[in-house]
C-alpha cells in the first residue's frame, strides 16, 4: 500500500523530528541550567563580598561593645575613631567636589518658619497659606518620638548605611554617585537599593533593610503621605532614619533624625520673581506640571502661582496641564496653547527641564514665537544646553550629587555626635545665559 508506506516514512520523519525536538528540549533545559548557574556565579561572586562587609562592619560594633567592659582603653579607641571621623568630615567638606566643580557637601541652609495659618483648607487655590503644610516642615524637635535612637557619638568611620532611593532615573544615578563619593571620603559603607517607583516594593525594601540591621537608613520616600508610616517602622525597629530629597508631611519628622533636600518652594519663588521681572509684571503664563499629586507638583505649580499673586497680581494663569514627561506630548500641548491663546501667552513655566524643555522649544520654534519666555525647574544636560543656546531664559540649579552629599554629611555628623539641624536645605542658584558656563560638565 503506497500511502501506508509514505505514512510510515512520515512517521520516521516525525520520529526524527521528535528526537530533534527532544534535543531542543534538552538544549532548553541546559540553557535554563546555565542561566541558573550564571545567577549562582553572580550571587557567589557577590556573596563573599557581602560577607566581607559584615565582617568589616562587625569590627566597629565590637569596639562599641568593648567600651563598657574596659572603659578607659575602649573609650580611647572610640575617641580616636571619633576624632579621626571629625577630621575626615572637615577635610572632605573642603576637598570633595561634584562633577560640575561645586562643593559636594556644602553647608545646609536653615529656613525660618512663619506662623501657621488658622484654616488652610478653606482658602482659595492661589493663596500662599493654603500650601503652608507642604512648604514648611513645621515641626518642633521636642515633639519627636521618644523611641528615636540617640547618636552613639563614636565616629562615622566604618559605619554601614543603607540608602533607599525612589526609582531608576538619570537623576537618581547622579544622586547615588554623590552619596557613594561622599561615603567613600568619610569612610562609611553604603548600600543603595532602588524600588523602581513602586510603592509596595519600597515598603518591602525598607523591611529588608531593617532586617539586615545597618547603622542608619536613608529613604527618599515615593509618597509624601506614606512617608510617616515608613519612618515610623524604621524608628520602631531601633534604627536611626534620615529623610532625603522628597518633601514629606511634617509629622513624619517625628520619626526622623533629620531631613535634607532641595527647597523646591523657595527655588520656585525665586524663579517666579525673576520671571515676573522679565515680563514686566504683566502677561499670561501657562504651566506644565510634574507628576500629579507629588510634592514637586504642588511646589512647581502653585509655588509660582502664589508668588505671582502676591508680587505681580497682573500676571494671569492661563492654563495648567499635566501631559507628562514625553517630549512629543509636551510639544502638542504647547502648540495647542499657542493656537488657543495666541498673543496672550507670554511665558511657559515647566516643571522639568529635559523632555518638557525639548518639546516646548520645538513647538515654539515651529510657530515662530520667539517672544515666549520659557523657564524650567531642575538642571539636566538638556536644560543647560537650552539655556546656553538661548532658548530657555532661566533654570534653577539643584545639584543631584550635592543632594546625596548633603545627606551623607548629615548622617556622618550625626554619627559624630554633632548637633544637626532637623531640616537642612540644599544651596541653590539660578542659571542664566550669563553664568551657564560655570555649571558644565553637567551631572546628568
Amino acid at each position, binding site marked *: 500500500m503506497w500511502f501506508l508506506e509514505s505514512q510510515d516514512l512520515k512517521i520516521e520523519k516525525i520520529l526524527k523530528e521528535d528526537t530533534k525536538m527532544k534535543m531542543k528540549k534538552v538544549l532548553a533545559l541546559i540553557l535554563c541550567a546555565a542561566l541558573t548557574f550564571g545567577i549562582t556565579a553572580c550571587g557567589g561572586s557577590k556573596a563573599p563580598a557581602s560577607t566581607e562587609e559584615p565582617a568589616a562592619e562587625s569590627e566597629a560594633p565590637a569596639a562599641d561593645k568593648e567600651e563598657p567592659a574596659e572603659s578607659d582603653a575602649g573609650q580611647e579607641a572610640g575617641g580616636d575613631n571619633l576624632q579621626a571621623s571629625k577630621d575626615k568630615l572637615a577635610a572632605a567638606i573642603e576637598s570633595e567636589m561634584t562633577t560640575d566643580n561645586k562643593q559636594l557637601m556644602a553647608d545646609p541652609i536653615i529656613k525660618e518658619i512663619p506662623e501657621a495659618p488658622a484654616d488652610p483648607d478653606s482658602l482659595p487655590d492661589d493663596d500662599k497659606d493654603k500650601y503652608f503644610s507642604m512648604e514648611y516642615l513645621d515641626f518642633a524637635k521636642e515633639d519627636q518620638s521618644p523611641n528615636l535612637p540617640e547618636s552613639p557619638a563614636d565616629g562615622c568611620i566604618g559605619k554601614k548605611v543603607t540608602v533607599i532611593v525612589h526609582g531608576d532615573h*538619570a537623576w537618581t544615578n547622579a544622586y547615588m554617585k554623590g552619596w557613594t563619593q561622599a561615603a567613600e571620603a568619610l569612610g562609611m559603607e553604603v548600600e543603595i537599593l532602588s524600588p523602581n517607583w513602586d510603592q509596595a516594593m519600597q515598603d518591602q525594601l525598607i523591611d529588608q533593610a531593617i532586617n539586615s540591621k545597618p547603622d542608619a537608613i536613608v529613604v527618599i520616600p515615593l509618597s509624601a503621605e506614606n512617608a510617616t508610616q515608613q519612618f515610623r517602622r524604621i524608628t520602631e525597629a531601633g534604627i536611626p532614619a534620615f529623610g532625603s530629597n522628597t518633601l514629606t508631611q511634617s509629622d513624619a519628622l517625628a520619626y526622623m533624625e533629620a531631613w535634607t533636600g532641595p527647597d523646591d518652594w523657595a527655588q520656585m519663588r525665586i524663579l517666579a520673581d525673576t520671571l515676573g521681572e522679565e515680563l514686566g509684571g504683566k502677561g499670561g503664563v501657562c504651566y506644565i506640571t510634574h507628576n500629579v499629586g507629588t510634592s514637586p507638583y504642588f511646589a512647581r505649580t502653585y509655588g509660582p502661582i502664589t508668588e505671582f499673586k502676591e508680587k505681580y497680581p497682573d500676571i494671569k494663569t492661563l492654563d495648567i496641564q499635566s501631559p507628562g514627561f514625553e517630549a512629543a506630548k509636551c510639544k502638542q500641548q504647547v502648540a495647542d496653547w499657542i493656537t488657543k491663546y495666541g498673543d496672550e501667552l507670554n511665558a511657559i513655566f515647566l516643571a522639568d527641564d529635559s523632555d518638557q524643555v525639548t518639546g516646548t522649544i520645538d513647538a515654539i520654534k515651529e510657530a515662530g514665537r520667539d517672544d515666549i519666555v520659557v523657564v524650567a525647574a531642575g538642571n539636566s544636560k538638556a536644560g543647560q544646553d537650552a539655556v546656553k543656546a538661548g532658548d530657555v531664559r532661566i533654570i534653577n540649579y539643584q545639584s543631584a550629587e550635592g543632594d546625596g552629599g548633603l545627606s551623607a554629611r548629615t548622617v556622618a555628623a550625626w554619627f559624630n555626635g554633632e548637633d544637626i539641624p532637623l531640616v537642612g536645605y540644599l544651596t541653590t542658584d539660578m542659571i542664566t545665559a550669563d553664568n551657564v558656563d560655570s555649571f558644565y560638565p553637567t551631572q546628568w
Partner: protein
Amino acid sequence: MTKVNENTTAAKSDSRKTEINKALVFFDKAGVWILVVCLMAIGFIINPSDYFSVGNIRSILQAISLTGMCCAGLAYIVYSSNMNDMSLPMTIAISGMVSIQLVPFGIVVCIFGGLLTGTLVGIINGFMIGKLRANPIIWTLAFNMVLSGIARVAWGGSQIYPDVVAGGNEAALATAETFNQLARTYFFGGSVSLMMVVMVVMFIISYFIMTHTKFGNQLKIVGTNYETARLSGLNVVRIITLSYIICSFCASVCGLFYASMRKIGSYDNGMGYDFSCLTAVLLGGMTLLGGKGSMVGVFGGVLAVGMLNNVMTLIGISTFNQYLVTGIVFLLIVWLNTKSARKLGRA
C-alpha cells in the same frame, strides 16, 4: 389571522432590517472619519479663526506622527489576528539607544544600526509566533521584559546623549547634530516636517502593500482564518514572520525619530506605546479577530486621537478629565464598529 400576523411580523422584521442597514452601512463605510469630521466641526466652532490655520494643522500632524509610524506597522499585527505587539516600547527604545551608541561611526551606520536592531526584534518575534505558534500577547510581553532588562543592564539605567557619545571628535559631533536634526527637519518654509512626510509615506506604502500585493491578500486570508489559510497551501509562517518584521521595522523608525526628538536614548523611550498605538488602530476599525479594517481607517484612527487631544485642550478640559473622555469615546466608537459589523453579518 395567523397568516396576517406572520406577514406583519415578516414585514416588520424586514423594515427593521433595512432601517438599521442604512445607518450602519454608512457607519461601516465611513468609520472613524465621522468622528474626525465631528471633531473638526467642534474645533471650528470653538476657535473659528485659528483652527484651520497652518500652525494648528501642522501641530496636530506633528503630534501624531510618532504614533502614526508605529500604527502603520502595528496594523499588520492586528490585521493578521495576532492581537497586539507588546514589545513595541522596547523596540522603540532599543533601536534609539543603539543608533545613538553608533553615532561616532557616521550617520548612515547609525541609522541603519538602529533599523537593523529593530528588525532583529521582529525576526525573533516572527520566528516564535509564526514558526512555533507562541501566544502573541504573552510572548511579546515576555520578550519586552527581557529586552528591557538587557537595555537597563547594558547601559546601567542611565540616559545617553548623542553629543556625549560623540566625545570630542569633530566629525562625530557633526553626526550627533545631524541625528538631533532628524526630527527637526522642515520643508516648505516650516509647514511640513520630515516626520510627517515619513509617516504619510509609510501609510501610503502600507496601503499599497495591503491592497495591491499578493502578500496583502494572503495576509487577509491568514487574518480571517489561520487554519483555512494553512490548509489552502499558503506559507503562513512566512506571512506572519514578515508582518512582524514590518511592524518592528516601523517601530524602529519611530524609535529613531523619538530618540532624535528627545536628543536622549533611554530605556523609557516609547513607554506606553503598546496600548496607545493599539487604541488608535482599534479606533480605526480594525478588530482583534483580524482580517478586517483598512489602512485608511487606521490613519483616521491615529488622526482622531490627535484631534481629540487637540480639541480637548482647546476647550480647556483638564488632564484628569481627558482620560475619561478618551475612554468613553474609544468605547463608543469600538461598540459602533462591532455593532455595525455584526448587524451586517460580517462578524
